[in-house]
């Protein structure tokens, strides 16, 4: 009984120490990289927003290239109803 109690005490103490270790690790990894990623995200946002007009222009050019240039339909005098 005494030995079981001793083992339990050691286990509880070890768990206590381990939880401390985990808590300290979590605190260290928490905020440091988050702000860096947020900053890099804002940089990426600037690049994307600035490239948007050029992308729209490119998309429009490609669209007109693949759909073909549709010239306005001429109405013949003979076709008039």
């Amino acid at each position, binding site marked *: 009984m005494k030995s079981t109690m001793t083992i339990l005490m050691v286990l509880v103490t070890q768990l206590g120490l381990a939880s401390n270790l985990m808590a300290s690790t979590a605190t260290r990894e928490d905020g440091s990289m988050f702000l860096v990623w947020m*900053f890099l995200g804002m940089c990426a946002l*600037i690049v994307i927003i600035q490239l948007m007009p050029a992308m729209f222009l490119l998309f429009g050019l490609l669209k007109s290239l693949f759909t073909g240039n549709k010239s306005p339909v001429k109405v013949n005098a003979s076709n008039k109803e």
Partner: protein
Amino acid sequence: MSPKTRIYLQPTPVRIWHWLNALGIITLCVTAVQIRFPEHVHMFANYKTAILLHNAAGLVVTFSFTLWFIYYALVSRNMFKVYVPSKDDLQYGILRQAKFYLLTYFLGWANPHHPTPENKFNPMQKSAYLAIMFLLVPLVSLTGLLLTNVSPMRDLVLLIGGLKILIAIHFLLACSLCAFLFTHVYLATLGKTPMAYIKPMWTGWEEEGAEEHPHKAS
């Protein structure tokens, strides 16, 4: 009423460089305060966060500077014309522009400089940007890169005079850059409206007459 004429003044690579630079330099200044005075300033969770953010912003500014250099030197190939003041600029232009900023602006006169894609900057801007882009930014980036990782360039650090001298040089150069930032923002608001010069830097297009005085009698 005549239609408003617009000129395409700021191409996309220049706009990307400018806003990355703006965000980067502001982040560098804010984080630098905590790095320099850690016992008094606690803006970020800890010292390590400030260092990491400072390093990331420094790398972004260095990268955007490279983008700016490649664009002007290899793509548009007008770096010399845009950034180097001419003989006329040095003889008369700087004085004319200084007179405008110090006196005639307050009397309601129009800006003597009219920007074009080939001549974007007034003589004072040219002189200031020449020093900033070809001296200040490269030196502050180089000293910053040396401070980020000292061991690979240990000999160069020792040649400069050691870590303390390197930190002092980096700090003084950064202070000059920070001082320029306030002047830059103030002068950017002196157009026809406070946003008249800031909007083209975001959209690329400047409306003709943006340099007119805000209180000009119509």
